[in-house]
């Protein structure tokens, strides 16, 4: 279990490093470009604003918006990943299904989500459902492509063995293909998690008008610039955290199912 603890620590360390680098670049850009102080805030300004004892109402507002965005992103990601995994499994069992559906799915993916959002709002309303659909769609494709490729990339010898023992396709899928596709699933989720956040923000901005996605825009138009920069910071940090959490989960799972792959760096 020591190794697991070490991996978690390494994960947290690299997340902290990312935050440090981003803050340095941020401050550098602000100082270097001589930007109007009315509009710009540095990392320290955000920090002071967040900790100001008089800002209870602001903190409550940001916390509530963050809670909504976190809910939107997580629900979207879970829905998108579940749907993608289910479809990848169906692809593995019925090849003809894949040949019919995959090109359609890829064509849909080529339509920019921003362009589809007004339609999605029209069809699914302006509530949690359309947010889930939008955040789900961004998660769906990377997971679908990666997992269905991995399900197929199982060593032929393993499949031959299962075949020789008379295993059904479903058993082969469950015993051999699924475990060997786990690394691909996590790799896809690491990419998809920050995307789910972006999808949630987009949905909030264009359809629901709640959460951090709209709060950022609203803060600019009402000149609450401290609030806007803080919201942007929260989103950035959340994105890094989400990535880190999934990386750690990935390492723990791989240590169990694919020890040879677990050794690579986070």
């Amino acid at each position, binding site marked *: 279990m020591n190794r697991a603890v070490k991996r978690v620590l390494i994960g947290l360390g690299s997340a902290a490093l990312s935050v440090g680098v981003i803050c340095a670049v941020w401050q550098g850009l602000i100082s270097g*470009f*001589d*930007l*109007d102080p*009315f*509009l*710009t805030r540095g990392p320290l300004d955000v920090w002071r604003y967040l900790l100001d004892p008089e800002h209870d109402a602001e903190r409550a507002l940001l916390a509530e918006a963050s809670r909504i965005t976190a809910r939107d992103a997580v629900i979207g990601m879970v829905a998108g990943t579940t749907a993608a995994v289910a479809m990848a499994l169906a692809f593995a069992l019925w090849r003809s299904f894949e040949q019919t559906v995959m090109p359609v799915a890829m064509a849909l993916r080529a339509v*920019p989500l*921003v*362009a*589809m*959002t*007004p*339609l999605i*709002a*029209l069809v699914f*309303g*302006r509530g949690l459902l359309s947010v889930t659909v939008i955040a789900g769609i961004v998660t769906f494709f990377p997971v679908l492509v990666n997992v269905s490729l991995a399900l197929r990339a199982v060593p032929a010898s393993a499949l031959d063995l299962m075949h020789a023992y008379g295993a059904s396709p479903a058993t082969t899928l469950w015993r051999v293909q699924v475990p060997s596709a786990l690394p691909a699933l996590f790799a896809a989720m690491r990419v998809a998690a920050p995307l789910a*956040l*972006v999808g949630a*923000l*987009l949905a909030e*901005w*264009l*359809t*629901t*008008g709640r959460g951090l*996605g*709209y709060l*950022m*825009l*609203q*803060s*600019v*138009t*009402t*000149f*609450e*610039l401290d609030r*806007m*920069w803080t*919201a*942007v910071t929260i*989103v*950035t940090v959340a*994105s890094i955290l989400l990535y880190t959490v999934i990386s750690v989960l990935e390492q723990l799972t791989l240590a169990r199912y694919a020890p040879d792959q677990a050794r690579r760096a986070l």
Partner: protein
Amino acid sequence: MGHPMDRRLFMLRTARAAAGLAVLGSAATVLAACGDDDEAPSTSASGGKDFGTLNYQLSWIKNVEFAGAYIADTNGYYKEAGFSSVNLMAGGPNVSQDSVVTAGKALVGISSPDITGAAILKGAPLVAIGAQYQKNPFCIMSLASKPINSPQDLVGRKIGVQATNEPVWNAFLKANNLDPSKITKVPAQFDPQPLVAKEVDGWFSFFTNEPNLLKTKGIDTAVMLLNDHGYPMVSEIYVVRKDTLVKDRDKVKAMLIGDIRGWTKSIQDPALGAKLAATVYGKDLGLSEAEQVLESAAQNTVVQTADTKANGLFTITDQLIEQTIKTLALGGVTVTKDQLFDLSVLKEVYQADPSLKVTP
């Protein structure tokens, strides 16, 4: 409604407006606006004044709302006033015009007193130097079959409000003692389709714009003017940075002269600006010229009043200033007259050339 063309154009526009705004949406808006000032006034060989490029931030998409500027540009009024070229920058539901002017990316912007007032109270170094509209054009548009006729009717309804109009919406609710938590507000873009699809009950609009748009498509609307419900004020104000009035006073005057001449023409012939909006400046917006003419004629009724006939376009009487300030205070924007308005430049323009005042 069966207008696939409009829908497609809307989506294209939305996509364009939204490109790159994903995570750092608002930050990108501000940062893009914060780049260095690229106006480089070069000395002209012709010996005349050369003010370089006029960067002009509009408050909305390029429809006939800015007729005077299109005419001034097309007829060369800005050039005659000393600018080498004009950069009319489109605004829209997600553009904060006051931020763009504050960042120095535009010499002048068109805004609303409540938006600029809120910015000034937050420390923005801005000031308003004139007003195109003598009356508040904002309204809540609803379907005639389910009308919203009074502020009280808003309670329990779902209203589409553009992000850029948040300060106006907030102040209007406050001026009418309405609790924002009792009204569902959803983000609106510029196409009132969600109202037609009954996705929302009301749509934040200019009375000149969206109601006419739907009228030409055969849809009857009810219009509740903010001006008639505790919220009268001037609008479409010219906003500049305060230091611009010191550093670039002549440039501001030149811009105003171009606009006065352009708007004078637009009042003479509402179809002129409509044609330019539909066929040149807003060509890719899919505007209907016939509808733009209606809109142009409607807006002329608030640009030209007995007062502006007597004192010149964009001037604001003391009485109207008092009223605007009083309304703003009701909406929680407690800005003073001297903080918000400086009409001295406009006065100087008309003093130097009283013939500009002559309107048909």
